[in-house]
């Protein structure tokens, strides 16, 4: 068996993949926080952004894929104890596909930034992580989420966009939280590499 660090074939990677899938699951258990204007936010999409930023695109793909497989097999790992194949036919199913692609895009973006400025720390790192989670965790995720909503609920693009608009402020907060977390992890574990595949 080859031991490329970027894939699931490496035992070390397997541990990180399982770990981050668990982080996504635990973020679903942490109670929901209600924003002042009444929209609930759960932390699970923060987990997705974090996976993309910290693990790089390849392992982010395996991590979110593993999480979704566990959900599909019937484990109630989504926030609110949801799980099973049923969540993949719900109107919000597009977001689940968006998680997978979004995490990968977030990882690609993070890697590209870090390759260009490998010494980024402090403010630079904050901005890079914020932008990466914004691209992967909001732009890409909402693209698929809105697409799913259009198909399942027979809405036009404008109508579907309006329906999810209320969640964007909460997700912006999550992007900021993700940036702070990435920075703390890099500070707490200086050996952590952000530019891997």
């Amino acid at each position: 068996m080859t031991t490329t660090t970027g894939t699931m074939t490496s035992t070390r990677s397997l541990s990180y993949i399982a770990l981050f899938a668990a982080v996504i699951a635990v973020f679903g258990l942490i109670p929901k926080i209600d924003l002042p204007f009444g929209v609930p936010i759960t932390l699970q999409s923060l987990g997705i952004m974090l996976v993309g930023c910290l693990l790089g695109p390849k392992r982010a793909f395996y991590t979110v894929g593993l999480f979704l497989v566990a959900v599909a097999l019937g484990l109630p790992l989504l926030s609110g104890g949801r799980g099973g194949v049923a969540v993949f036919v719900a109107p919000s199913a597009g977001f689940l596909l968006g998680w997978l692609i979004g995490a990968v895009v977030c990882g690609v973006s993070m890697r590209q930034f870090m390759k260009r400025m490998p010494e980024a720390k402090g403010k630079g790192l904050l901005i890079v992580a914020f932008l990466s989670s914004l691209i992967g965790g909001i732009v890409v995720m909402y693209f698929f989420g809105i697409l799913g909503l259009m198909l399942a609920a027979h809405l036009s693009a404008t109508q579907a966009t309006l329906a999810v608009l209320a969640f964007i402020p909460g997700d912006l907060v999550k992007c900021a939280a993700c940036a702070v977390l990435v920075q703390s992890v890099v500070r707490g574990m200086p050996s952590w590499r952000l530019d891997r595949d």
Partner: protein
Amino acid sequence: MRSLYSTRRTWLHGVPAWLKLVALSLGGTVLMLTADVRGIAIAAAIVLALFASLGPAGWRQWRMLRGLLIASALIAGFHWAMGHPAIGLVSALRIMAAAMLALMLSITTRFDDLLTVLETILSPLRRFGLPVERIALAIGLTLRFAENFYAQWQRLDDAHRARTGRSGGLRLLAPLAIRALQTAERVADALAARLGG
């Protein structure tokens, strides 16, 4: 963790997992292709009757459908208000019927049986380097990690409460993430020592 699987045996428990999966995909396809109100109403009635035939094992998982019912009602109401009640009715019935079919699979099929089917389906991907046989190990690790982190989060939260009298909330995410990564490194070392690479 509350799994969706019901230990209360129903007639559907005895049907092999692969057959149920095939039936689910066929049922889902039929639902997708049915576009007229009468057709979808008949299909939904059949699904409802099948779901009811599971008895209390099915109704006990009612909470899984509650959110979807609200979403379907909103979709139907929206299209009604826009002057296309038929489109709303078809979308809402389709979502509910598909979700019920999927939930029936989750309620009556053991996790291990579904995993076996999944491994069989994915096994051709082995040629492209996907270590299919490690999916079970990865999911097991994920669940163990999730339990571990939830306990760690509660411990951090208790410690924070003892110091400040308030719940820690988002402030605990950074220490939690760093602890999680340190645990993952230890597990990675342990796995590498036992499995190699």
